């Protein structure tokens, strides 16, 4: 209707492009994801191919990250393992966040009995250590990528739930929500169109943190032999090889490279989260522009004040 300004989405993208941290994170994640998709082509080896003649070789030009006890190429396995690890981390985090956000939004806005029940339920789930819950579920559902995703999501939604709920409880007291109600907006519209965008930055941060946590959790679970079956390569399964002291001492390439892959990817995801948090807040937009002007000192002096204004 009104003479179109550059759309909000476009502005956000152009601001994200200018956000150094975010772009570095995006580059890392992009690199890791594409190389795990083209694992076989990049490494030149089938990750599941045994080679009895070349077992436990240290890194060399033919096997960049060496080979394991069965003669499988570690580079290929690390790249290939990324597929499952990333899938588990991202999907579990997404699902958990989705459950937590929707329930938290409704509970925080509507309050009442619904809220009481959910908050008690989340407290109940949280009193158990997540690992114990996961172990219980694994024994019921069995191992497997899909099961791990499902288990992480239903044992991990409470943090997001509580976060979103408390944000909504404070936001619902804002005058603009009152104004929305006075205009006759439906609760659905107020919750999802007006309050949710104002909660996006903590949700995005929670998403990136959870992704990182679940990738590490998958590694831990697989290390214990409870996550994904050993036959499927994941970063965690590869790390599990380091259970034997002899591997830690003599075959360092078997655990250093998967561990490094986890660190690199998780760092990338966290960088994206940082960048997104900056970009999603319209009040920080002018700040981003000014920062790209080059004066970090100016930003230091005026930055915090602007944000509060």
């Amino acid at each position, binding site marked *: 209707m*009104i*003479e179109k300004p550059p759309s*909000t989405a476009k502005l956000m993208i152009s601001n994200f492009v200018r956000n150094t941290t975010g772009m570095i994170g995006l580059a890392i994640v992009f690199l890791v994801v594409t190389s795990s998709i083209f694992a076989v082509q990049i490494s030149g080896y089938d990750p599941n191919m045994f080679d009895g003649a070349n077992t436990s070789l240290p890194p060399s030009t033919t096997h960049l990250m060496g080979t394991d006890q069965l003669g499988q190429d570690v580079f290929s396995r690390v790249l290939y393992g990324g597929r499952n690890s990333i899938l588990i981390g991202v999907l579990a985090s997404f699902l958990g966040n989705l459950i937590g956000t929707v329930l938290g939004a409704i509970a925080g806005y509507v309050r009442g009995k619904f809220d009481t029940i959910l908050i008690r339920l989340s407290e109940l789930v949280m009193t158990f250590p997540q690992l114990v819950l996961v172990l219980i579920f694994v024994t019921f559902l069995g191992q497997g990528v899909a099961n791990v995703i499902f288990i992480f999501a239903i044992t991990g939604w409470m943090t997001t739930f509580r976060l979103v709920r408390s944000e909504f409880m404070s936001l619902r007291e804002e005058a*603009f929500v009152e104004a929305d109600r006075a*205009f006759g*907006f439906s609760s659905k519209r107020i919750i999802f169109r007006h309050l949710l965008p104002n909660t996006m930055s903590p949700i995005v941060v929670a998403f990136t943190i959870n992704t990182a946590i679940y990738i590490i959790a998958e590694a831990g679970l697989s290390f214990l032999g409870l996550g994904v079956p050993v036959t499927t390569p994941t970063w965690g399964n590869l790390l599990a090889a380091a259970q034997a002291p002899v591997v830690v001492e003599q075959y360092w390439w078997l655990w250093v490279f998967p561990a490094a892959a986890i660190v690199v990817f998780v760092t990338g995801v966290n960088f994206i989260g940082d960048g997104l948090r900056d970009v999603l807040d319209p*009040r920080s937009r002018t700040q981003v522009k000014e920062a790209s002007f080059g004066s970090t000192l100016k930003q230091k002096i005026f930055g915090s004040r602007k944000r509060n204004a």
Partner: protein
Amino acid sequence: MTSKKTTPLYQAKSIKKYFPVTGGILRRTIGQVKALDGVDLDIYRGETISVIGESGCGKTTLGRMLAVLQKPTDGELTFDFGDGLQDVAHLDRGEELAFRKKVQMIFQDPYTSFNPRQRVGVAMDEVLQVHGVKDPEERFSRIKEACEMVNMRVEYLQRYPHEFSGGQRQRLAIARCLAVKPELIIADEIVSALDVSIQAQIVNLLRKIQKETGLSFVFITHDVAVARYVGHRIAVMYLGSVVEILPAEALPENAEHPYTIALLSAVPDMNLQGKKKQIALQGEVPSPIDAPSGCAFSTRCPYVMDICKTTRPTLRIAADGKAGHQVACHLETPPTGE
């Protein structure tokens, strides 16, 4: 404004709003805050009615009742949609939307009354969409018209709320209401968060809009001078009830309720020669949790009689017989203020 005085646009009859006070571990109700204790108010077409009173007298609660943001504990709210007065306290979704289109509200704090993540223009557009204006061209022309009324350039609408000053935001809030084409606007302390110079700007703007559009306004304020300047009639509230309603031009000489007289005498006066004596009321405003049983003002009234302590006075025609002048007081001849 006098021509259509016969039937009110909006009528509030003995509105009560009690908030429960809970205590103890079992969170039992141990008392009630009587925020509104039987308020009668008629709002006519094309008039501005100012509601004044000190902090905690229930004027904001009254505004929220009139906008049906909260439901009254007891009493009747009836609105004239065009064919007589209808109950509006209990509406279904469709009726509620129709009512909200007619009655708009502007809030005190201009800094939080817009969604910080939404461009102001988009916010205005959304309100019109919700109220069923399907054609984007018509939405735009209505928004443009509303912006012209509040002297706001349409190009500014692509900005975010934080890019405006308090006064600008309050003007935008007014424009957002006007775009819906309501019949009544409830303005709750809309100038109290602004600088005095900006207050004057907004107040003049409201007067201009009222004259041009013939809308009804309920103007809630604690500033007697602003109330007199904006309103045709002034409703004076004390401890949850309206003690006097009087025409703005009748102030301050014709005030009949002892509280109104005391309140008006406390307004600073620039005229040093003819300076009137200030009436200093004794004591404190009683707590609305255990308000006096009779007249709310009976504990502090200098003219208190026995009947005041037992029977609650209701609004009646004032002694001077002026149109629109009502007072809730047992005194038959008004005190002189001396």
